[in-house]
C-alpha cells in the first residue's frame, strides 16, 4: 500500500515540476548552473571509470579467446558492443545515480529541513518546479554528452591495453571496432541515457523533497535516493531493451 501511495505522490510531484515556470530567465540561469554542477563536475569520474573499464573489457575478452578460429578483431568488436550497448549507458548511469543522486537528495533534503523550501513557497515560488525542473533539463540534455565521452574513452582504454600488451594489432582492433556497426545502437544507448537521467534526478528529488526531520533523515533520504534510482534504472533498462532491441 505504501508503494502505491509513494507512486501517487511521485506522479503528483512530477505534475508540479512540469507546471509553467514563474520566470524563464531565472530558470535558464539555474539550468546552466545545474549543467555545470551535475554534468561537467561528473566528467572526471566518468573519464577515469571509462578508461579502466574499457581496458578491462578488452583484456578479459582477449584472455577468453582460446580458439585460434576466432579472429583477433573480435576483441575490438566486443569492446565496442559492450561499451555502447551496456557499459556506458547503464553502468555509468548507475555510477551517476550514486554521485549525482545522493547530491540532489541531500541538497533538496537539507533545504527542506532548514525551511528554505517553506521560504520559497511563502514567497509564492513553485518550489518543486524551481528546484527540480532545471536539474531534469540539465541532466537529460547533458548526460548523453557524458555517455558519448565515456564511450570514446572506454574504447580508447581498450585499444591501448590490448595493443600495448600485444594481444591484437592496431589494424585488427580498429577493424573490429568498425565491423558490423549499426548506428541504431548509438540511438538505443542515447535513448536509454535520457531515460536514466530523468530517473536519477526525479527519484532523487522525490526522496529529498519529502524528507522530514533532521540531519539523520537527510542521510537516510540520500541513501534511499541512490538505492531506488539504481533499482528503477535496472528495471527501465530491461523494459527499454525489450522495446528497442527485441
Amino acid at each position, binding site marked *: 500500500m505504501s508503494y502505491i501511495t509513494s507512486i501517487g505522490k511521485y506522479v503528483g510531484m512530477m505534475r508540479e515540476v512540469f507546471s509553467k515556470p*514563474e520566470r524563464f530567465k531565472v530558470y535558464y540561469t539555474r539550468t546552466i548552473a545545474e549543467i555545470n554542477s551535475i554534468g561537467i563536475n561528473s566528467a572526471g569520474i566518468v573519464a577515469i571509470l571509462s578508461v579502466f573499464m574499457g581496458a578491462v573489457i578488452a583484456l578479459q575478452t582477449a584472455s577468453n579467446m582460446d580458439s585460434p578460429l576466432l579472429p583477433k578483431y573480435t576483441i575490438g568488436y566486443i569492446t565496442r558492443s559492450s561499451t555502447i550497448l551496456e557499459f556506458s549507458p547503464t553502468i555509468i548511469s548507475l555510477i551517476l545515480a550514486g554521485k549525482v543522486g545522493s547530491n540532489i537528495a541531500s541538497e533538496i533534503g537539507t533545504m527542506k529541513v532548514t*525551511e528554505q523550501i*517553506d521560504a520559497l513557497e*511563502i514567497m*509564492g515560488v513553485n518550489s518543486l518546479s524551481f528546484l527540480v525542473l532545471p536539474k531534469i533539463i540539465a541532466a537529460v540534455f547533458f548526460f548523453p554528452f557524458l555517455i558519448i565521452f565515456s564511450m570514446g574513452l572506454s574504447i580508447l582504454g581498450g585499444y591501448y591495453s590490448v595493443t600495448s600488451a600485444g594481444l591484437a594489432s592496431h589494424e585488427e582492433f580498429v577493424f573490429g571496432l568498425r565491423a558490423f556497426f549499426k548506428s541504431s545502437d548509438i540511438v538505443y544507448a542515447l535513448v536509454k541515457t535520457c531515460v536514466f537521467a530523468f530517473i536519477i534526478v526525479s527519484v532523487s528529488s522525490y526522496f529529498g523533497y519529502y524528507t522530514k526531520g533532521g540531519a539523520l533523515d537527510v542521510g537516510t533520504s540520500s541513501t534511499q535516493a541512490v538505492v531506488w534510482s539504481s533499482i528503477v534504472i535496472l528495471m527501465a533498462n530491461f523494459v527499454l531493451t525489450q522495446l528497442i532491441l527485441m
Partner: protein
Amino acid sequence: MIEVKNINKSFGENHVLHDFSAQFEAGKVNLIIGQSGQGKSVLTKCIVGLMEVDSGSVLYDDRDFSKMNRKERKEIRTEIGMLFQGSALFDSMTVEENIMFPLKMFTKMSKKEMLDRANSCLERVDLSGRNKLLPAELSGGMMKRVAIARAISMNPKYLFCDEPNSGLDPSTSLLIDSLIQEITYEYNMTTVVITHDMNSVIEIGDHIVFIYNGRNWWQGTKEEIIKTENQEIIDFVYASKFMKTLKGKLA
C-alpha cells in the same frame, strides 16, 4: 488586517486547533504566545497556507485565502514576508542575492534597481556593506537581520515571524524585537510574531493572543496580560524565577 475564523486542524486523532478565531490588526505587532505543543506553529502554517485547514477560513483584508486557487494564493503570497526560526536563508546565495531573489522572481526591476533596493534593505537592518557574504559567514543575529531584509524587500503588507529570538543572546534579541517593531510601524504592516520570549511580550506586544490546547484562550494587551488572573497564563508567564521576582516588584 488578518482574520482567522473558526479554524480546525487535525492530524489523525490529534486535534491540534479547535475552532480557533482571532484578528490581527494592521500597523500593530500581534504576538501569539503559548507553551510548546499548543499549536502555535500549526496555526501559523495554516494562516500562510503551508498547511491546509480542515475547516474555517483565513481572511487577508477580507480576501478568503482558504478558498483561493493556486494562482490567487500566489498573488497574496507576494504580499507576505516571513522570518523563519532558523532564518531559512538560501545558503548557496550571497546576502545580496538572497534579498534580490523575490525581486528577480516577481518584479520587472532592472539589475541596478534591484541592487539599490537590496542596499536600502541592508541599510535598514544595519548591515550595509555585507552584500557579498554567504549565510555561513554570518552570526545568528546577522542571519536574522538578513532574513528581515529579505522579508521586507517586496514591501509586504503582512509579516510573520516564527520565534525570531530563538538562539539569540538577550541584547541581540532586543535588537531584533526593536527592528520588527520599527518596520511594522514604518510600513504599516500586519505583523504576527510567534514567541515564547516574555521579554518580547513586554517590549513589542501591541496585541497578544494566548493559545492553549489549540484554542484562543485569552487575548489582550501587554498591560492586561500582566494583571490577568487567568491561571494558565500565570503558569506560562511567571514560570521563571525572574518573572516571579518582577511580578513581586511590580506588585
